[in-house]
């Protein structure tokens, strides 16, 4: 392991670079195509790999035809509300499940486990009918409805609360903290990594989700970035430069967040994965 020959290094780096290219090429091709005209995109001339000039017409086109400002607003509102609910409700419940004793605790935790073990498609139709009965389709409320509470978040944070040593709890009680104060002032700051992981996980999940926004908010003005893409695809069918411009607009918010918070993104995957 210590002695890595030159040949080994060259081979390994070559493989890694080829792999990396496969990983990012679709994104680069997305961006390149989004600046082309349809004629340029379909010409397939290797010397015309890049657009002859930077054209923003495709972006203008999709933004005019599909209300992207509204799509961003819907998507971010949905993410913000889902993240807030997941953090607040899950940390409360997780703390109680991990550190308090009360009748019915294990039964209620069983409900959490039950939700996690079952494929989410089972809940979709009844949830849909509920939102429909409330007359709340095509609203932000409809988008956030299934994610108002998070079984996964409760389970994840419970693991974090369990790791806090008992001594801290005793000293907090001796200092005269009641349970609420102990939770907010002492315990909550200690599970911050768990909260960050849950926030990222929830945001990513909401951002990528397709089926729920598709069925519950069919109106174009109530769609999310993800669900709007399927409509954009049928609207432009083979106008690939336009489709690519829409894709760039849809992926870039999360990509930017990822480049800024890379470390947190990966840690969130690891913590949410390995605490299971």
């Amino acid at each position, binding site marked *: 392991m210590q002695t890595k020959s030159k040949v080994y290094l060259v081979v390994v780096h070559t493989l890694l670079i080829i792999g990396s290219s496969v990983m990012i090429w679709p994104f680069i091709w997305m961006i390149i195509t989004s600046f082309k005209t349809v004629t340029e995109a379909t010409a397939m001339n290797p010397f015309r790999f890049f657009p002859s000039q930077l054209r923003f017409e495709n972006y203008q086109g999709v933004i005019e035809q599909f209300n992207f400002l509204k799509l961003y607003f819907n998507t971010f509102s949905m993410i913000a509300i889902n993240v807030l609910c997941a953090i607040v409700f899950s940390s409360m419940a997780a703390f*109680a499940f991990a550190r308090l004793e009360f009748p019915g605790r294990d039964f209620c935790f069983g409900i959490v486990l039950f939700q996690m073990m079952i494929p989410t498609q089972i809940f979709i139709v009844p949830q849909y009918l509920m939102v429909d009965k409330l007359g709340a389709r095509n609203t932000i409320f409809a988008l956030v409805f299934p994610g108002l509470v998070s079984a996964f978040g409760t389970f994840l944070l419970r693991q974090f609360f369990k790791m806090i040593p008992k001594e801290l709890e005793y000293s907090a009680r001796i200092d005269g903290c009641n349970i609420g104060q102990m939770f907010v002032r002492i315990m909550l700051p200690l599970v911050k990594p768990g909260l960050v992981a849950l926030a990222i996980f929830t945001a990513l999940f909401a951002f990528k989700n397709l089926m729920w926004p598709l069925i519950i908010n069919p109106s174009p003005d109530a769609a999310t970035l993800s669900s709007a893409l399927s409509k954009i695809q049928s609207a432009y069918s083979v106008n*690939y430069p336009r489709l690519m411009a829409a894709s760039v607009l849809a992926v870039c918010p999360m990509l930017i967040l990822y480049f800024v918070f890379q470390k947190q993104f990966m840690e969130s995957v690891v913590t949410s994965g390995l605490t299971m």
Partner: protein
Amino acid sequence: MGEQRTKKRIGKNRISEWLWGWFLIAPTTIGLIILNIIPAIQSFYMSFFKIGDFGVNNEFVGLANYEKMFNDPQVWRAVINTLRYTVLVVPVSIFLSAVIAVILNSNIKGQDIYRSIYFIPVVATPAAVTMVWRWLYNYHYGLINFVIKKIGLQPVKWMDDPNVAMLSIAIIGIWSIVGYNMVLILAGLQEIPKTYYEAASIDGANSIVMFFKIILPMVSPTIFFVMITSIIQCMQVFDVVYMMINVSNPAYDKTVSLVYLFYNNTFKYYDEGYGSAIVMLLLVIISIITVIQVKLQKKWVNYL
């Protein structure tokens, strides 16, 4: 006197702990009951009904939906398609991510950059990702066929050929998941104490021996976890198939997944009862796979 008072206080404390406990779990528990427990029961219940418009005028049909399902060739095709997708994506993606993770773990230069790049597809919307791949797969103007033609081979109908379309979808699936699994396996590798390697190399073990005797057994719990989550995720594949193959595509029968079929029956043909029966089938299949895996894990996973 004093003893009595402490007893009283403990009693009071306990009641207050109960109240706090109930208060703190109330939102989550009530939410889960309304959003998940009742819907799960309803879904099961609905699978015995022919559901009228907007969930009213339901007509009890007994096992008719299940009977229809077992005689519906489309359902069995969907089961086979979903399993084929899983069998294509899970082993290949785990193998690739394990190889990349092992290489990156050997303190290679640029480790962080490679890791960041491989992770990018994880943060991209599947809907957008599928659109680019559709463009790359395009028969006439797609980049992949362009390269294939340049080499002198016949262009491939990536999306319309019933024998190829599933492979094309699986490639997108693998591409999307490799980074996620790699980060998890890498974390598992980094848990292995350095002293293990040192001890092994003093004993004269080479890289290959080290891989099979140290690395593999030590990361087997992580790989097991990655495998379970990947399989469950693959069994629920929808986004990519939905964005790539519409109902009129000649490859539809060879690519439609269980969840896609559920979606079409429920929200396209408005047969919620039948859709619910399909979801129950999905639940049963996923449960069977999970039980088999948990049974098998005892054979090859080393928990310390």
